[in-house]
């Protein structure tokens, strides 16, 4: 189904060419991204992995038009990130749930639908549908503070999905959660991706998380922020968390780890 809506002649949802981004700070210029090339096909689950400061979040923010590259070209659905954002082409899940405390769970999910001008009945129906998808039916009238961190993050995922974008950006969505909740949500997210066939771009610094979820892993390195390896990762679709013990999983994880180590500059 994503093939129908996924833009132009090519299958590329994201096309990044020679992108550089410099931040000007008091201590001088920081090269957050240096000569980044990447293309992402429709229906892929692509993870950016790397240590802090490698530009993985910055790269995703560039794709989402929250940051402007210094040079290079970026196309999202065949148009500029700004146009894509204006057309509301993607959903974005942040590191923290970013829920409005004065809105109930239901009203938080309704927020993007209100802003984008969906009709009242459709809003209600979509909110119900996606809250159910993240197993939060029955919590509609609760306020964010009444939910656990994991549940709050699920609300924010439902909120991102509710406008039914074909492209989903997720910036370390489970980074602040405990291991058990994280495993559980990884499992749920994998099912969700398989059900909806969306294109997902996912930032993480956890190797097992990246290998478990992704169809492709982009390994990045800091100073300057750059891509040092892109690893295909074709684990069986019906995988469960147990696959993390299997040899194929460990082989890929090993390659990611090697890539990270190679890119690490110990002089700093």
């Amino acid at each position, binding site marked *: 189904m994503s093939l129908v809506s996924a833009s132009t002649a090519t299958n590329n949802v994201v096309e990044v060419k020679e992108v550089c981004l410099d931040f000007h700070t008091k201590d001088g210029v920081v090269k957050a991204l240096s000569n980044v090339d990447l293309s992402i096909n429709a229906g892929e689950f692509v993870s950016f992995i790397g240590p802090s400061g490698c530009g993985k979040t910055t790269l995703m923010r560039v794709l989402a038009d929250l940051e402007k590259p210094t040079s290079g070209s970026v196309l999202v659905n065949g148009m500029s990130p700004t146009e894509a954002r204006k057309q*509301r082409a*993607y959903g974005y899940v*942040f590191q923290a749930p*970013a829920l*409005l405390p*004065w809105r109930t769970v239901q009203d938080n999910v309704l*927020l993007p639908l209100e802003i*984008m001008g969906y009709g009242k009945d459709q809003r209600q129906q979509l909110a119900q549908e996606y809250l159910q998808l993240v197993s939060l039916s029955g919590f509609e009238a609760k*306020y964010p*503070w009444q939910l656990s961190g994991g549940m709050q993050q699920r609300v924010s995922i439902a909120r991102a999905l509710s406008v039914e974008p074909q492209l989903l950006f997720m910036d370390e969505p489970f980074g602040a959660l405990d291991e058990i909740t994280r495993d559980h949500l990884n499992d749920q997210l994998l099912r969700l991706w398989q059900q909806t066939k969306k294109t997902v771009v996912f930032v993480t610094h956890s190797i097992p998380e990246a290998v478990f979820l992704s169809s492709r892993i982009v390994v990045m390195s800091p100073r300057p922020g750059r891509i040092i390896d892109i690893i295909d990762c074709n684990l069986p679709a019906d995988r469960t968390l147990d696959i993390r013990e299997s040899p194929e999983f460990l082989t890929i994880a090993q390659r990611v780890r090697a890539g990270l180590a190679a890119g690490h500059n110990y002089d700093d």
Partner: protein
Amino acid sequence: MTTNMRRKPGSTIPVLTVILAIIMIWYVGAINLNSPQIIDRYEKKGIDWSFSQLATDSWNMKRAVLPSPHQVLLELKTTIIDKNVTSKRSLIYHAGITLSSTLLGFVLGAGLGISLAVGIVYVETLDKSLMPWIITSQTIPILALAPMVIVVFGAMGISGLLPKALISMYLCFFPVAVGMVKGLRSPQPMLVDLLNTYSASKWQVFWRLRLPSAVPFLFASLKVAIALSLVGAIVAELPTGGQAGLGARLLSGSYYGQTNLIWASLIAAAVMSASLVSILGFIERKVCYRLAGGQEISNEL
């Protein structure tokens, strides 16, 4: 728990103790300040006096330097309960006049402060140009400005409520503008980014994010502003030559050495100020409780 309107258990006794201490210090102070005159009088008349005699006389002296609490209470009773509300000698009448310009000035000042804050947050030129002027405006002493405003408006044939309210407004708008700017800028960058990913308009960001986030800051400012507004109203009543209002009562009290009157007016002003701030505090708790999604609010005052 529901909204915690009641004081924490155990705070009644400390509060009463402090009040008791203040009253005791007041009585001791009355002896200290009034006794020289009383002793003078005793010596002129050649009367033998004891300390208890001196204390009683100091506490009941007419035109005392510091009238004792019961004298002030008596003054409050005669000017509040015994006088008709429409009488020019009723404290309620004068308090009402001051209250009306306090409230009008507060509404105008809050309106101006909020508008300026929205301008500063949304228009970059205003952000750079306006704030220095706003701060400069507050360096002009209100005591110097008030007579000028009253006189200028008087020359234009405008007197009474409006010029006084303008002086209150002048004091009020500043904390509101400063608090509101901070409040409107208080949302986490992540939430602003979130609304940007929805390609939300400026007004959608204002109504759905910035304004609700600013409300706690706004209430803190409003509580400061309403107390200042009362100060402004009283100061504005001084140069009118003591026609009406608590400021006028303070002035005529000092003209005629009627210290009872001064203290009674002061207490009326203090009670009024405290009540206004408490009313705002009550509304603040209700509103902030809703904004926190019904979560208990900890910053109780």
